[in-house]
């Protein structure tokens, strides 16, 4: 049960990352590798602030803001200096590795001794249940663990709703068109370059928010924690689309959250069954490759069987 709760909670926290990747990859049509650096930046910023006595909520927000700044830099490199989006992301990600080490002052900052945002979940749980352990469908469960998960779920739902609302407003709708047909929305008076910068800022802000919360949940920030996170986010988005389809904005946001949680659960089960953790990134990459290629491949095969319907 602890393992299940842990996977669910991490899946929910990384759903923020998945939403961030959804914004850059699906809405703006830019595979933004800054993600790998900005998740660590969020974690590092929040961790170092908390260690130095800043309020955990403020520290978390500061982490997210730092990620947004990183996204802005990528956006400016891409739009103002006309650098290929992929390369702009690689440049900023590489630079962030040094920045993150400077922010933390070392390669790892432990957070176990200090109060952080996950304590709010535990406090709420203790206030409601009144004991350290509780009973869920016959399972003996740690109250704190359960309510941290519930709090994470509420927070993710809130952020998802906010994202949905924003992308249905006039400016948000125009931003979705930016990724879909920039020529058209420019002819309708939208400053496409500014939208792209803003979109990458939002995307990396969400990613860094995930990093800030993840660091507090797992009890440390680490310079290596961001490696491969973009692929993780892509996997979540793709699983989500397989689950709910690609048509409606609301559904795809929900899909990204579901995809993240499901993917985390699958990974936990695979590891439990004896998968070598070293193979995890390889398998994730292969999975994303298959998910990107298979739909086109299946389409190619179909005309060979005419009148199958």
């Amino acid at each position: 049960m602890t393992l299940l709760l842990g996977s669910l909670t991490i899946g929910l926290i990384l759903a923020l990352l998945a939403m961030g990747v959804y914004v850059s990859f699906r809405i703006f049509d830019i595979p933004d590798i800054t993600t790998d650096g900005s998740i660590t930046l969020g974690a590092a910023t929040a961790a170092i602030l908390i260690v130095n006595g800043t309020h955990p909520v403020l520290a978390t927000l500061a982490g997210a803001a730092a990620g947004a700044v990183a996204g802005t830099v990528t956006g400016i490199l891409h739009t103002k200096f006309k650098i290929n989006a992929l390369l702009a992301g690689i440049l900023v990600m590489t630079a962030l590795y040094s920045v993150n080490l400077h922010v933390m002052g070392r390669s790892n900052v432990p957070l176990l001794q200090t109060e952080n945002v996950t304590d709010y979940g535990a406090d709420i749980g203790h206030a409601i249940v009144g004991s350290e352990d509780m009973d869920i469908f016959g399972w003996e469960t740690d109250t704190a663990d359960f309510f941290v998960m519930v709090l994470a779920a509420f927070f993710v739902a809130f952020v998802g709703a906010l994202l949905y609302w924003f992308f249905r407003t006039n400016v948000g709708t125009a931003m979705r068109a930016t990724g879909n047909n920039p020529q058209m929305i420019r002819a309708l008076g939208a400053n496409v370059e500014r939208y792209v910068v803003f979109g990458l800022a939002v995307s990396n802000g969400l990613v860094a928010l995930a990093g800030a919360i993840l660091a507090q949940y797992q009890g440390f920030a680490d310079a290596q924690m961001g490696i491969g996170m973009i692929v993780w986010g892509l996997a979540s988005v793709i699983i989500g689309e397989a689950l709910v389809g690609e048509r409606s904005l609301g559904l795809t946001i929900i899909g990204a959250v579901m995809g993240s949680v499901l993917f985390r659960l699958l990974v936990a089960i695979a590891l439990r069954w004896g998968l070598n953790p070293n193979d995890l990134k390889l398998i994730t990459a292969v999975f994303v490759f298959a998910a990107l290629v298979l739909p086109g491949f299946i389409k190619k095969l179909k005309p060979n069987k005419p009148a199958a319907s």
Partner: protein
Amino acid sequence: MLEIKGIRKTFNAGTVNEVRALQGVDLTIEEGSFVVVLGMNGSGKSTLLNAVAGSFYVDQGKISIAGKNVTKWPEHKRAQLIGRVFQNPFSGTAPDMSIAENFAMAAMRGKNRGLGWALSPKVTDALRERVVTLKMGLEDRIENAIGSLSGGQRQALTLLMATWLKPSLLLLDEHTAALDPKSAHQVITLTDEVVKRDKLTTLMVTHSMQQAVNLGDRIIMMNKGKIAYDFSGPEKKRLRTEDLLDCFEEIRRREQLDESTAAMLAEQYI
């Protein structure tokens, strides 16, 4: 309304691919007039349209629309004065978004897009009313993605979107060239209706002599980045497609003359 003074544009200047696309174009268009631009491939007619729309900045000269000097305005800022329909039916709409959402964006052309809900009932009701007049049965499909529609339908919708907020200037860049004859006819009829109803100042590029003769109140023929002929008023009304073909022939002969004279002179003096 539209005032162009001595605009010049050279692409890839100083390289082997140098193209002198516009070589000093002067053009003034009165408010409410419908100008058709003709010319052979590479004559600079699309470049002229793109220069007005702001797809690039001109090297020299001045462009004013509705009394505003827009020469240094970026493309997206000029959009508050200009409605556009492109040659490619896929260019004017966002394919993965619904008809309603595309119109919601067109309803904010050139305005400050705030945090208001995009698909307000006001927009969707007005949209349905207008789409019914297309008689394409699209009024029941406004929640569908535009990508599922045919090129002709998309081009008709793009035209409605471009003119949703009355533009000071409407730019049509061979907007029927990529359509089948039936759709092209539908779109050109719609164009005529909309332009007449709203008395829009229009600049239309086309390859079709027939369209040029039937539509508009002025014809401009371009050659080598300059305006070669300019017909308006009663002269334009009398113009037939044969006359236009004669003009093209004359341009062709003059060019040949240039070449043969040069050859003759070379023979004599070199």
